Each structure stands twice: as C-alpha cells, then as structure tokens.
C-alpha cells in the first residue's frame, strides 16, 4: 500500500498553548480586580483606566477571546491535523492567525481601559479591531478548510463538524453584529437602533456563547476525552444527533436575554421555547462524554487530565440545564439583572471552558515535550484548589442573585416596596461579593500551580517541533469501508456539509431577525420621542465610555415591583434613536431608564464626584475626573453626521454650527442649575454633558403621553 510520511506542526500548538496560559492569568487577574472593586470601590485607586465599568469588558474579553480563544485554537490545531492525517494547510496562515489574534488581544487590552468601546457585550471592540478580527478569522477558516481538503482520512470525525460550524457561524455573527458607522478612528455607532439593536446584539451575544465557548469545545471534548480515556466515544450515533440538533436549535434562543423587555412578545416566546428544547441535545452531549468513561473510572481517580474533563463535562451539563431554566419567563423575572446570571456564566466559563482547557494543557505539554508530567501531585492540588475556587465563587453569587431578586420584588403589608432604596438590596449582598473574590483568588492560585507544573514539564523534556506520521493517501483509504450511506456521502463532501450546516444555523437567525426589521408594528412609534441634543449625545458617549451599563440597566420591565420603584415601564418606541441600545444586562445600581428629573443637577454632580456623599454605603466608584476633563466638542460634527447616516433625523448642516450653539446654550443652563445648588462648574467639562444626558433619560414619554400611537 502506498503510504505517505508527513509531519504534524507542533510549534503552532505550543504557541497557542503559551498564549492560553499567559492571557488566562491576565484575564483572571483583571476579573479579580473587578471583583474587589465591588466591595471596595477605592481599589481603582481613583484611576479611570482601571475602574470597574472599563475593566469589566476587559475581563470578559480577555477570558472569552484571549484565554478560551487561544485554548480553542490550541486544541483545534492539534486535533485537526491528527484527525485529517495531514499537516495544517498553510504554516503561513497558522502564524498569521496566531499573531493576528494576539495583536487583536493587545489592542483590546489597550483600547478598553482607555474607554474606546461600542458598549455591546462581548463585541465592545471598535470598528478597526472588528475588521482585524474578521481578517484573522478568515485566515483561520481558510486554513481549516484547506487542511480538510488535503486530508488523508476520508471521513470527517464529529469534532471537525463542530469546528466547521464554529468557523461559519462566528463569521456570520461577528459581521452582522458589528455593522456600525464610524465617527472617527475609534468611535462608531451601531447601524441598528433600540429594540432591533437589542435583538441583533443578543442574537450575537447568546450565539457567541454557543459557537465560541460551546461548539468548538464540544469538538475538543469529542477528540480529547476519547484520547485521554483511550476508548472511543460512547455513542457516535448520539454525537451525530447532538451536533445537528445543537447547531439548529442554538441560534433561535437569543431573545431569552430580553424577556419582559420592550422586545415583541412573539420573539420572546420563541426564544424561551427553543431554549427549553436545547436541554435535549446538550444533555445528550454531556451523557455521551461521561458515558465514554464507563469502565474507566479507575483511570479518573489517577489521571488529572480525566479529572478535569469529568468536572468540565459535568459543568457543561449543569449550565446547559440551568440556562434553559433561566429562560422560562417566570424564573427569568426573578433572575434577570441579578448576580444569578453571573453565577450561571461562571459555571460555564470556569467549569466547562476553564477545566477543559486545563485538561488539554496537561494532556498536551507532556506530548509536545516528549516527557511525563512533572508532578501529578501538583496537578491534583490544582484540581482541588480550582474546584474549591469555583464553589467559593459560584455559591455565594447564587445566594446574592436570589437575594437581590427577592428583595427587589418584596412588598410590605401596606402594599409598598419593602426596600424602596436600591442601595439596601446591594448592601445586603456585599459579604457575598467578598466571598466571591476569595473564590476567584483560589481559582487563580490553582492556575498558577499549573503554570509552574507545565514550566517544569517543559524544562524536563525536549520540545518536538514536528511529529512524524504516516498514512495512505485519500483515494485508497476511502475505498476501505463498505457501501456509502447518506451521512457518509455527506461528510465525505466537506463543501456540501458546510453549506448544510450554514443553512441549519441560519434558519433560526433569519426567522427571528427579518420580521423584526420588516414589520413596523414591532416598534410602535411615539411622536414625543425626539433625537438627543448635541450635549446629550456627548453625555451619552461618556456614559458608554465609562461602561455605566455594566451596572445600570435602562429597561423597566412591566412588573409592579419595577414600575413602583422606577416609573412607567419601557416602551419599544422610546429607543428608536438609541444607537446603540443601552438596556444593560446587570443591576449593581438602580435602573436609569426614567432617571431624568428624579434628582437636581447638583445631586448628580456631587454623586459623580463622590457617590458616598449622597448615598452612604454605595459601591459605585468615584468619577471625579469627569469634573476636570473637557468634553470632546471637536468630535461633535463627525458624531452627529454618523448618527444622521444611521437614521437619526438631524437636519442637514446641523452639525456645522447650529449644533455647537445648541450645545453651548444647554451647557450654560446646566451650569446655572448647578449654581443654584452652590456648585461652580465650567460649561465645557464632561460632567455637564453627562448630567444633561441623565436628566433626559425617560422624559420624552412624560412630556406628551397622550400622543403615543399604536
């Protein structure tokens, strides 16, 4: 038989492995700093660049795209070559992918603390970086499909299907959600507004979790778990059902992030039902993973790689059961905006992604360096400390979440809110925030032990840059396995398979998103809702820059507990000029949708300077730099012009003169208001713009409620 000899590229795998470890530490450290600020706000050292609102997206981006992203590439570059029995299609593309990705991460690490953000969760990076992401992703995809094309194994193993689904779907999601109008080099406005922006964002946000954190890692589970256990997957048939059901269903579930919001009810219901159906394929996958270990549980006791995998797969099962339960509208009414969601995502991130990444690293390092793991004992310590860290993180935050939800909804016997001051509810859970930081520290300590162990392993062995392998070329190998069946034909033709996967993925998105844009009744207009004034636009941009929406929602749900606390519930028509929407997903502070007119300007000034002077016990950081920094009036023309291009009806030429006058007049008014409160402020300072924006929030509908249409 004609057998070819070739070499697997280990250098690229090692590069991604090192990047995974380095960025993992960075992401966890930033997370810890953010966690500490939630009970000790002064931990930002009154330094705007490391304040909670700005480093929260840095933490999420670092963990998702840098730690888990590099871990994903590490696993794919190792397993794909071996499953295809071929070296990667192009070494140049491999390294282009690697360095491009690291450059994107460094750009994110610089721009997010500097306040350059689109504000859309997990898509905060500004437009030039968005383009770079698309380019790096194309390089990865070409390399993936190129390797598949030159494979020596006829059949595509199920792991590769998951990789294909990842490559296609992330490209579609990223491009659709990143449609934005530039208003300068590092500033842009979303093409979509309000409700539509919210739907697209959470269609993206949910599916970024699905197709960046789940499908590639499922592919890796289907490769590394059988490898580590040295036995085939429990049921290959089940893995086929798992794949197709998962890729078809996942994409529909995005609206479960917007339950009881101003999103049309049909979209909410669709999101809920499809989320519930997701339990079936997810648990099919989990059971398939765990049952692969049947008869091999003695190995689990000894091998740290398998230990980490068992916890990872179990965490996958737990979070994919919890996710659908949280999508039930009644459960969601309690959990949404609370820390429950934070606990839920950390079971997934720390347990599923984190532990599976650790298991891959422990598996790969000895093999890349041709030696044994330096210390199994230390790896076991890592396992237990990491597990304990996860428990200490998640359990207190679950308690905090349920406490918050119940306290927000509690009425007294007289029918008034039991805790009318939001601050009372957050003070109650501060001890839980402290415990959470302990948990995060433990998890980080465990990871540091791993770094030392891997370093010693590398030192003890000798790195093998290329591993020699042999296989027969495709045509001869392909003839060896009986009659072709339907599925065999399908996965024997990667292009057709890819198209079918894309169709399965896209159906859900199309069914949800197209009617949202075409059917006018989805967003009933309110004639009194007007575009923001120039000063308010600048104020809104400061609100975005500081990441205020990390703690303050702008969406009052139609519950009595919310309307009593915040005022009339939010309507879809109120957000038609909101590019981007700023509904938020978490409340560490009260909702601000109807903040306008609630307090005098002077209160806001003092509150921003030192929140504890107006609200004793508040965990909000000081924003004293807003009192001294000048607002960016020079940027106004490009911003108003960009907003007009995305559909805000500013008159032609408005930005070339009238806007500056309008801004000046409104700023003078705010300064005069502040003077009444014995505060002297200059009209060109950022605080003036922010106050103008906050005082506008939710007031349009109050001015002429009778004119509401539909």
């Amino acid at each position, binding site marked *: 038989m004609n057998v070819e000899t070739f070499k697997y590229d280990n250098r690229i795998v090692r590069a991604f492995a090192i990047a995974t470890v380095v960025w993992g530490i960075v992401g966890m450290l930033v997370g810890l700093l953010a966690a500490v600020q939630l009970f000790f706000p002064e931990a930002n050292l009154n330094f705007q660049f490391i304040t909670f609102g700005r480093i929260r997206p840095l933490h999420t981006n670092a963990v998702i795209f840098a730690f888990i992203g590099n871990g994903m590439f590490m696993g794919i570059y190792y397993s794909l070559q071996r499953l295809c029995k071929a070296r990667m299609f192009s070494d140049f593309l491999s390294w282009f992918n690697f360095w491009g990705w690291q450059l994107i991460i460094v750009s994110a690490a610089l721009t997010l603390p500097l306040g350059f953000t689109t504000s859309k969760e997990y898509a905060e990076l500004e437009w030039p970086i968005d383009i770079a992401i698309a380019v790096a992703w194309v390089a990865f995809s070409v390399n993936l499909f190129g390797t598949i094309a030159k494979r020596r194994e006829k059949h595509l193993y199920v792991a590769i299907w998951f990789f294909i689904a990842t490559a296609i779907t992330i490209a579609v999601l990223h491009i659709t959600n990143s449609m934005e109008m530039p208003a300068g080099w590092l500033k842009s406005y979303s093409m979509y507004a309000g409700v539509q922006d919210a739907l697209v964002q959470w269609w993206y946000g949910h599916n970024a979790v699905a197709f960046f954190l789940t499908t590639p890692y499922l592919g890796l589970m289907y490769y590394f778990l*059988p490898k580590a256990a040295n036995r085939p997957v429990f049921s290959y048939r089940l893995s086929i059902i798992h794949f197709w059901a998962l890729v078809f269903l996942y994409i529909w579930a995005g609206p479960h992030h917007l339950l009881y919001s101003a999103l049309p009810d049909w979209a909410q219901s669709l999101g809920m039902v499809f989320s519930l159906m997701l339990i079936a394929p997810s648990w099919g996958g989990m059971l398939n993973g765990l049952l692969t270990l049947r008869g091999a549980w003695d190995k689990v006791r000894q091998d740290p790689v398998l230990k980490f995998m068992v916890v990872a797969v179990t965490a996958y099962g737990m979070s994919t059961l919890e996710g659908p339960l949280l999508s039930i509208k009644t459960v969601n009414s309690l959990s949404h905006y609370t820390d429950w969601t934070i606990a839920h995502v950390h079971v997934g991130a720390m347990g599923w992604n984190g532990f599976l990444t650790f298991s891959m690293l422990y598996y790969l390092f000895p093999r890349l360096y041709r030696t044994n793991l330096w210390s199994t004992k230390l790896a076991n310590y890592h396992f237990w400390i990491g597990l304990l860290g996860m428990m200490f993180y998640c359990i207190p935050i679950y308690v905090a979440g349920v406490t918050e939800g119940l306290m927000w909804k509690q009425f007294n016997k007289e029918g008034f809110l039991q805790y009318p001051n939001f601050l009372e509810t957050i003070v109650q859970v501060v001890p839980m925030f402290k415990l959470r930081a302990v948990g995060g520290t433990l998890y980080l300590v465990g990871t540091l032990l791993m770094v030392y162990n891997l370093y010693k392993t590398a030192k003890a062995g000798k790195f093998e840059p290329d591993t020699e392998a042999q296989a027969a070329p495709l045509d001869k190998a392909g003839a060896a396995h009986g009659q072709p069946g339907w599925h065999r034909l399908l996965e024997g033709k990667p292009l057709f398979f890819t198209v079918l996967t894309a169709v399965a993925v896209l159906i859900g998105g199309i069914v949800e998103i*197209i009617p949202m844009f075409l059917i006018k009744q989805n967003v009933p207009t309110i004639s009194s809702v007007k575009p923001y004034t120039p000063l308010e636009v600048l104020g809104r941009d400061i609100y975005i820059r500081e990441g205020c929406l990390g703690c303050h929602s702008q969406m009052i749900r139609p519950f009595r507990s919310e309307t009593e606390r915040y005022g009339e519930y939010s309507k879809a028509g109120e957000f038609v000029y909101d590019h981007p929407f700023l509904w938020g997903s978490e409340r560490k502070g009260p909702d601000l949708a109807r903040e306008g007119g609630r307090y005098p300007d002077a209160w806001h000034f003092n509150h921003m300077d030192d929140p504890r002077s107006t609200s004793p016990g508040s965990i909000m950081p000081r924003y004293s730099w807003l009192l001294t920094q000048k607002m960016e009036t020079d940027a106004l023309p490009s911003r108003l012009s960009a907003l007009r291009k995305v559909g805000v009806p500013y008159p032609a030429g408005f930005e070339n003169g009238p806007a500056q006058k309008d801004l000046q007049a409104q700023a003078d008014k705010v300064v005069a208001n502040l003077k009444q409160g014995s505060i002297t402020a200059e009209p060109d300072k950022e605080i003036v713009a922010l106050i103008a924006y906050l005082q506008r929030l939710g007031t349009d509908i109050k001015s002429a409620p009778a004119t509401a249409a539909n």
Partner: protein
Amino acid sequence: MLYNLVHSVLREAVSINGYGLFSFLLFFGFFIGVLIWAFRLKKNYLSHMGDLPLKSGERPENSTDPIQSENL
C-alpha cells in the same frame, strides 16, 4: 421591489402569531429527519468513526507516550 414583496408576504400571508407553530414544526421535522438518518447508519461505519481520534498515524518509535503507542 424585493423588499416590498418580502414585506407584504410576511405581513399578510404569515401571521406573526403563527411563527411559534411554524418554528416548532420546522425543528420537529428536522429533528425526526436527523433521528431516522442516525439510526440507519451502519454499525461498522459508526465504529470506524468512533475510532478515528485513537489513530493519529504517528509512528510508535516517535512516541514516548504509552497511550499513543497503544493506539497504533
């Protein structure tokens, strides 16, 4: 033109309230199809596919790893 066509079809022909049923039937049909497909697959094919990760093609002499050596 196309916009108007799609717009009118969506607005008039398909009621937005029918979306839930439409979506469910779409998935249900798809799911049943996948089930039939999966259960009609041959056993030797399934076992060949399940074994793929265990066959990396690496030479035994290149591997110090006991697990990998076993697989070849």
